[in-house]
Structure formats: structure tokens, C-alpha cells
């Protein structure tokens, strides 16, 4: 079982969730994030004074998957999130030891199926 975490552009989130739905992924968690990579921040101007903002708004998508669909899920996120410019984000994975479905008490693979 793996936890896939993807940092993506806010405007690509709908495309990512649609792509995962098409793969049969049953649930995901989305949260606002901010950060920077090679894109760096941006400059804003208020009444002529420049303010450099180091952090850009991003979205963190998290999804628990079983090993057999891991590569497909990562490919789907990558394809859906990509624009080809700096700032498209990152995807990484964690090994997950166990999971519980709160409503039923199911554990492991069946908890995330």
C-alpha cells in the first residue's frame, strides 16, 4: 500500500481528479498548499511599491493506492497536471503500513478499495 502525494497547480486539480476517477480510484484528499520550486515566487506592486512573494499557491493531492495500480496512478496525475512550464509540481510516494476504514473497521487493502 502506498500514499501518493502530488503538489500540482491549482488550475490542474480538476483534471487530476477526473483522471483518477477514470482509473477507478475511489477517494482522494485535496488541501491548499504554498511553496516554491524552480518557478520561484512572483512580484506584486501596491501603490508603486514592489513586494516579492516567495511562495506560490499550490494544491496538495493525496491518494492511498495498492501496489498494482501505483504506476498507473502516478502516470495519470503526471499527465493531467503537466503544462510543460516551471511550476508544474512534484509527485512522491510513501510506503504505508496499514489503513482502516472508519465506518466498517476494514483494514489493509480492502480499506482503500
Amino acid at each position: 500500500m502506498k500514499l501518493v502525494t502530488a503538489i500540482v497547480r491549482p488550475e490542474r486539480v480538476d483534471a487530476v481528479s477526473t483522471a483518477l476517477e477514470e482509473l477507478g480510484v475511489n477517494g482522494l484528499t485535496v488541501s491548499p498548499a504554498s511553496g516554491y520550486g524552480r518557478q520561484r515566487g512572483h512580484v506584486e506592486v501596491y501603490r508603486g511599491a514592489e513586494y516579492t512573494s516567495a511562495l506560490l499557491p499550490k494544491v496538495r493531492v493525496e491518494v492511498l493506492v495498492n501496489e498494482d495500480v501505483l504506476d498507473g496512478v502516478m502516470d495519470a496525475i503526471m499527465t493531467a497536471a503537466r503544462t510543460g512550464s516551471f511550476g508544474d509540481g512534484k509527485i512522491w510516494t510513501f510506503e504505508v503500513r496499514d489503513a482502516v476504514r472508519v465506518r466498517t473497521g476494514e483494514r489493509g487493502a480492502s480499506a482503500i478499495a
Partner: protein
Amino acid sequence: MNMAVLAVAMEVDPQVLDPGATAWMLAASALVLLMTPGLAFFYGGLVRMKSVLNIMMMSFGAMGVVGVVWALWGYGMAFGPDSLNGLVGDPFANFGLSGLTGTIGTKAAGLPDMVFIGFQATFAIITVALISGAVAERVRFGPWLLFAALWVTLVYAPIAHWVWGGGIFGADGIIGSKISALDFAGGTVVHMNAGIAGLMLAVVLGKRLGFMKDPNIRPHNLPFVMLGAGLLWFGWFGFNAGSELAADATAALAWTNTLLATSAALLGWLLIERLRDGHATSLGAASGAVAGLVAVTPACGFVDPIGAIAIGVVAGAVCALAVGLKFKIGLDDSLDVVAVHFVGGLWGTLSLGFFALPSAKTEGGLFYGGGMAQFWPQLLTALIITLWSGLMTTLIAFIIHKTMGMRVSEADELNGIDVTEHAETAYELLMVGGSFHPGDPHGKADADAVPAESQSEGGRSRGKVST
């Protein structure tokens, strides 16, 4: 009484009620009062998220304190009979507005005195509220209310008396009998006055922690700023056209000039921004509009529409250039009260030296055949008011600051003045909590009572309610 007799009676007797003027002035007064909540939104959007309630409360606080002070002694000091050789009106002549409840036409022909009193109260309120922008995000609320009461008493009321109340700048006053300056709706009394007061208050109180260092000190809600600018513009029609104190052709001219100068100033500010910074900004549009409103305030009833457009476009450009000066001298005039209200008010006051139409009150400005004759009275009046307001404001602020302390502690300023001064926050941004369910004091939902499908959306109530 037939209509002809009525018309003659209204012309000769100012104490006969003029229903048209009275109706318009009642509405105009409400328009001007709306400017202060409008200003609260304008300023509220310009501060950080943690200070928005406090800066809005500084405006609302002014509405509370100045309204009451105005009725008790402020009106008498501004518009009552001369005392101290015209330096100020008599605060006791009509204390609590006694003797004025049913009178008509004492100050303006055909108007109940209560309309004039109410109209002028709204001017005093917004002038105090304007000052707050210079010291945003760092002033204790209680001392601010005390400052408001003292400032309207010792600074606003005397200056209003000089210019509008028949004091030293009046026709019989020690200065007014020699030179005659023009100020239709308050370029000096309201805007230069508030601008210099804001500057001196900012000098006394010092800058915010992180000023010119912390990139997070920037406007948190530009739609609020646009909303506030829109409300200010709307209310300003009452402010300027209402200052004619009648429903007549001059009021109409003032109304249209208030539109035109503001339109031109908006464009002037955006043009400077586009050339200097590369973008026309929404904050620039809102700020330009306010700069134009400020500048046309003294001029609106005395210039023609082309004059108003010229005054506006210069105001927008000059104020856009003036906003950067505070960074050069390290003065934290937080929301640019000096650059917009003092500079815009000064330009508007001086502009009458160039653009005033010839009338019974003036030979006209430089471009209208009057030479420089009107310019020098404008400049002298502006200087005297700047000096009085600057000195008295410094004195009041210094005394309050040294005795009570006007600033919040460093810790409170960093934590956010909304929480520490008012025990409130403006926004609920963390989408957590809301776990309360009826009938379950421990926060665990009763599975039998609440179906599983309906548990996903909790209420937004936060924390515990203590009584």
C-alpha cells in the same frame, strides 16, 4: 397664500422653510455619513488580515465619539457665536443643541438648523476617521477615542469656525477681512487638516514593526478597497453638492464636477502607474478616484467642467507620485493619508488660484483672467491651517501617548490587533471544527439520531461558548 406670494416670501425671508432644499440636504447628509463606513472598507482592505476589524473600528469609533461631542459642544465651537476674537465659537451658547430644535434659516436660507447641524456633524466624523489611516494597525482603541474627542474639539471645530463659521477667515475676521480664500466643501478644513494630522500622529507614534522590511505588510482585500472607494464616491456627491446648502444650479455644477474630476484623476493615477510600474492596478484606480475627490472638494462649486477635469488629472498624477515619498523618509503613513489627503487637498486648494471662475467672491483664477490674485490667499490659508493642525495634533498625540500610551505592545502588534484589542477575528479561514451535534455534549455524533449521510457537513460554530 397663493404661489406668487409664497415665492416672494421665500426670497426675502430665510426663516421660511424651503422644502426642496431641506429634502435634498437631508438626503445629502445621509450620503456624507455613508462615506465613513465606506472609508472603513477602503482602509479595511488596505491593512493585513489581522488588523481589518481594528481599522474599521477606528472609523466606527469616530462615528460614535464625534457624533456625541458635536451635539454637546462641537457644533457650538464650530458654528456658534464668536469667542476669543473669532478663534473659536462659543461652546456653551447652544450646549447640547439647546434652543435649536425648531429654528429655521439661522445658517442657511430656508433650512432647519437641525439639517445644517447634522450635515456638518457628518463632516467632522469623516475628518477624524480619515486620520486613522496614517497610524493603522498599532493604536489602542480607548486612547484613539480620547484622541478623537480632543482632536475634534481643539483642531477641527476651530478650523471649521475660521473657514465656515464666520471666524478669523470670515468676511469680518482679522484675516478674512484682508484676504478671501475659497474652499467650497472642505479642501482645507477636512482634507489638508486630516492629512497633516495623520502625518504628525504617525511621527509621534512611530512605525509599525517590520515597516519596509516585512513583505507581508500589504493590502489583504482589494475588493474591499474598491467597494470602499465606490461608497466614498457615492457619498461625496452629498459632501460636495450638499455644501451649496441649497438645491440650485451651483449644487448641480458641484455634482457634475465631482464626477468629472474623479474620472480624470482615476485615469491620471493609472497612467502614471502604467508608465512607471508597467501595470494599471485596481488599487491605483481606487486611489486615483479618492485623490480626485479630495482635490475637487474645495473647487467643485467654483470651477467649470474643463477646470474640474484638469484639477482631477493633475491630482491623480501628483498623488500617485507622492505615495512613494514615505519610503524615502522612513515615515509609516500606513495607508497614504498624507499623499492622498494632504497633497490632494493642497493641490485642490491651490488649484482655485488657477481655475476659479470669476464671481462675486473672486476675480477668477490665473487661467480665467484674475491673475495670481486668488492664488496667494489660497496658499496663506492652507499654510495657517497646516500649522495649527500640525502643532495642535502633535500636542494632543504627545500628551495622550506619554500619559496613557497610544500604541499596543509589540507582542499584541505581532499577534494581531483585532484579537488583542477587540477579542475578534475577521475571517474563519481554517475549515476545521464545526463538530458540535445537538444532544451530544462530548462531540460524538449520536449514530442513531443522525443518519450517516448527513454527517459530512457540520456547522461552522467554533470553539466553546462560555457564559
